[in-house]
């Protein structure tokens, strides 16, 4: 008789071999963290460039944002994993994850930062300029601090998308949570519990962030 996809002994197997999932969870968390830092750094640089008055700075920003927002993440990661070796550059799969996901989400972060900077009233920049601040000092001391409250909720939202998107690594044997669960289940066909546990682990990473976004949006709605 068929024991069904969620038979008790399959759950027991997941519990017994929990380190497989813990390893994947750790990799996913670390790739997410590093990719997020990369996305923030790229997003801040390209976001500020995109909000500048110089066409020479805005042009490259548009190319970066449009290219990475309008091509699939999967192709970008496959290119890093399968394409770059032909150019003599073999990246460890962990680096492929950090770079691929980080650069992809950096394009979205750049747009969030740019919109946040542009939401600060023009009079603020004029006041700073009239006091003698140059463009960079105005950005650091006057504009960016006012941008923070505007951009935090959408940035946290991006972090949620980023964490989920690290699962693309499963396609290139990335050792992340999705890959670990999938390859473990491929060996014993205990897919049901493996995927449920994996889903719950992603939920544990993302749900607190989502809840925090909700709370931030409520408080800023009250303040506005």
């Amino acid at each position, binding site marked *: 008789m068929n024991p069904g996809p969620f038979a008790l002994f399959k759950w027991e197997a997941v519990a017994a071999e929990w380190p497989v999932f813990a390893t994947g969870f750790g990799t996913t968390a670390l790739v997410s963290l590093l990719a997020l830092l990369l996305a923030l750094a790229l997003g801040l640089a390209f976001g500020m460039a995109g909000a500048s008055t110089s066409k020479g700075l805005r042009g490259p920003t548009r190319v970066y944002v449009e290219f990475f927002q309008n091509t699939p993440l999967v192709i970008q990661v496959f290119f890093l994993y399968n394409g770059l070796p032909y150019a003599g550059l073999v990246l460890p799969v962990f680096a492929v994850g950090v770079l691929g996901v980080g650069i992809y989400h950096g394009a979205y972060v750049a747009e969030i930062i740019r919109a946040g900077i542009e939401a600060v*009233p023009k*009079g*603020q920049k*004029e*006041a700073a*300029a*009239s*006091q*003698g*601040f*140059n463009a960079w*000092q105005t950005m650091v*001391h*006057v504009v960016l*601090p*006012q941008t923070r409250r505007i951009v935090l909720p959408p940035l946290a939202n991006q972090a949620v998308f980023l964490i989920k998107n690290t699962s693309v690594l499963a396609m290139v044997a990335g050792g992340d949570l999705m890959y670990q669960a999938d390859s473990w289940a491929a060996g014993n066909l205990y897919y049901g519990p493996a995927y449920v546990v994996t889903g719950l682990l992603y939920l544990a990473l993302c749900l607190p962030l989502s809840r925090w976004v909700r709370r931030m949006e409520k408080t800023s709605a009250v303040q506005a």
Partner: protein
Amino acid sequence: MIQLENVDKHFGAAHVLKNINLVVAPAEKLVVIGPSGSGKSTLIRCINLLEKPSKGRVTVDDVELTAHKAYVHTVRESIGMVFQNFNLYPHKTVLENLTLAPIKLKKIPRAEAEASGLGYLERVGLKDKASAYPSQLSGGQQQRVAIARCLNMHPKIMLFDEPTSALDPEMIQEVLDVMTDLAKEGITMVVVTHEMGFARNVADRVIFMDEGRIVEEGTPEHFFTNPTQDRTKLFLSRILR
């Protein structure tokens, strides 16, 4: 102190300043009046180069700002500007609004900048609001803070771009009082305003602008008792009721 020579300004097809020549002496109190759209605000914003003239020269304190791009920021440290909409930094407290530029630009120690800042807040009657945020203040209070913010940079020149136009009527006087008090000092003041009482009492000289040109200039006495140009007479008859 301030010299504008043959200054022209275009915004696209609009020709908003037409061959402006103007000299403001040290310690002079100059009031600029005129109908809306006459170029008053653009004129005052050309003095600290917030608007870059399309043509002509702007010289402040012997530095030609239209030639020395690098010096513009430094010269601006000695030119305070008060805006119609206050433009206080909303993420900073009142006292931090006063100390940000002195600390970051003039490298004045925080304690010293705060001490002088509190002095100026006392002078505009808002010492008790030092730790409040701008959003907690009335418009009149915000504008007085904006003036104190300029003063804490110890400027040689103060520019006022319609400082009372965004205020409720009962708050206009408290701002004008602060400006009148300030005018007793040796500071150079250029004031764009519709407050004719202030112009009459405080100005050394009044200029009247229309359609991008300086149409008439003279002492307040000349202006309010014996204007020569028809355009000036028409404007004054409409505004003085």
